[in-house]
């Protein structure tokens, strides 16, 4: 069991734009909030040299923007821990999280915001020659290829923009594109710039089968997908930009639903299939993966988590810790019959000298409690003793009938 210092309201796994925004909202809602982040705060955004579409910032750098997110979260008292989550247990109401350095934490709600990592092609030579010509970050490594020939694999925004950055150093950059001539996955502005760049060349309908070289990269084996033919191209460097995969492997045994690639399906509130667990940003199945949409996810999830926690706390105080037996009434404020019934139930209880405590749950806003007790219709009434269900009432509007069930 974790000691009391390690108990939180909200734990956010991951400190990219989604996680940090959730931290700002969580901290502002006075939730005891902890962000657990493995590397540098900011996540993938740190690797973006230039951001030109985050509202309010005509042009800014990725890491600068993320520092501002973090400072903002700190002003609301959010705590940060640099560590990696190894293991989770979401089977109880109190969620447990174990980190690599051995510490254990518990939280009422958990937000999964740990982003993505570069996908590997798993072709021969890719791993072996890493750091010896195989690279994944142009900012880090482009300079090592001064005056040399470099191959870039992929045609997304990152591939093309990083490719152009590499032309500042390399003699020639050859881009290997899966699609037909002229078609790339990146934005149009970048594609046009790339086509005009004298140092950029393109090989269409192709992919890479193998990275060649003994101690250092000496070339690549290219496969044309249309003709099936293989050819070799001499180069000293290969940069892979073949997309990302979510870093959600640690959730495999957690019961959180994921698709084949590791993305998590959520509803409008960012709720996963596990109560009190939310997935945001690049960890969820979604249409647009940008800083602005990640921030939106974080805000939504934090507010949803805040309401969930509030519901949980008030339920614990009113129902589980109550000395009297509790009549847990599920109603819908928009349903007249359930309101009428509610009045009757309170009257009957008064006639019985307040033998019970009546606790009302509005189904419209407190879906989680309804789900927990398998309630589908309003009105419904459960009789609880210290949280244990004793019986369910037949919700009749007949006073005597109702009273007889309660004696």
């Amino acid at each position, binding site marked *: 069991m974790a000691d009391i210092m390690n108990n939180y309201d909200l734990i956010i796994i991951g400190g990219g734009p989604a996680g940090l925004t959730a931290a700002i909202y969580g901290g502002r809602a006075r939730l005891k909030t902890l962000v657990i982040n493995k*590397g540098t705060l900011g996540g993938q955004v740190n690797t973006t040299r230039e951001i030109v579409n985050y509202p309010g910032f005509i042009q800014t750098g990725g890491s600068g923007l993320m520092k501002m997110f973090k400072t903002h979260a700190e002003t609301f008292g959010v705590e940060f821990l*640099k560590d990696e989550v190894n293991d989770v247990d979401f089977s109880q109401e109190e969620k447990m999280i174990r980190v690599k350095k051995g510490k254990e934490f518990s939280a009422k709600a958990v937000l999964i915001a740990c982003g993505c990592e570069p996908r590997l092609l798993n072709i021969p030579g890719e791993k072996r020659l890493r750091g*010896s*010509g195989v690279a994944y*970050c142009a900012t*880090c490594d482009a300079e090592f290829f001064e005056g040399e020939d470099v191959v870039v694999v992929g045609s997304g925004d990152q591939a093309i923009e990083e490719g152009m950055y590499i032309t500042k150093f390399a003699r020639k950059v050859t881009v290997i594109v899966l699609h037909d001539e002229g078609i790339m996955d990146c934005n149009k502005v970048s594609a046009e710039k790339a086509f005009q760049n004298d140092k950029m060349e393109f090989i269409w309908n192709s992919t890479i089968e193998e990275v060649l070289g003994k101690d*250092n990269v000496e070339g690549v084996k290219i496969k044309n997908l249309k003709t099936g033919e293989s050819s070799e191209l001499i180069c*000293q*460097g290969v940069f892979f930009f073949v997309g990302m995969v979510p870093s959600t492997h640690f959730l495999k045994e957690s019961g959180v639903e994921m698709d084949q690639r590791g993305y998590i399906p959520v509803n409008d509130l960012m709720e996963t299939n596990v109560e009190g667990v939310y997935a945001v940003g690049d960890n969820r199945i979604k249409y647009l993966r940008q800083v602005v949409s990640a921030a939106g996810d974080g805000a939504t999830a934090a507010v949803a988590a805040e309401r969930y926690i509030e519901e949980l706390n008030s339920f614990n105080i009113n129902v589980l810790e109550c000395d009297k037996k509790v009549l847990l009434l599920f109603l819908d404020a928009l349903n007249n019959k359930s309101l009428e019934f509610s009045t009757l139930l309170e009257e009957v209880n008064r006639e019985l000298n307040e033998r019970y405590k009546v606790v009302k749950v509005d189904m419209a806003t407190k879906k989680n409690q309804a789900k927990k007790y398998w309630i589908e219709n309003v009105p419904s009434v459960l009789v609880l003793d210290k949280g244990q269900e004793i019986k369910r009432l037949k919700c009749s509007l007949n006073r005597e009938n109702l009273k007889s069930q309660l004696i």
Partner: protein
Amino acid sequence: MSLQPLNSNSFEKIIYDDGESCLVVFSRKDCHVCKEVVPILEELAPKYDGKFGFYYVDVEEQKPLFQRFSLKGVPQILFFKDGEYQGKLAGAVDDEKVSDKITEVLES
């Protein structure tokens, strides 16, 4: 504990003249993977105090050093013992990988 930076001269002395068992991380300031790897080393270093050296080379300031080992990227951790090169670890590595490699070098 921050790592001791090396230049060409101190590199020569520590690695070849003294033959110290040690690692040298080649890094640069604006590389995000380096920013993850260097703190791991800083945390690990005190554990090996007196047994295994931890050093740092900034590739922007010490070009001849990375050219000499024909490095093609950062971060890279090079291992040395008795003045001989013992292999390297490239890219994002965790503390376990580094510890394993140190043990291997010390026991070789």
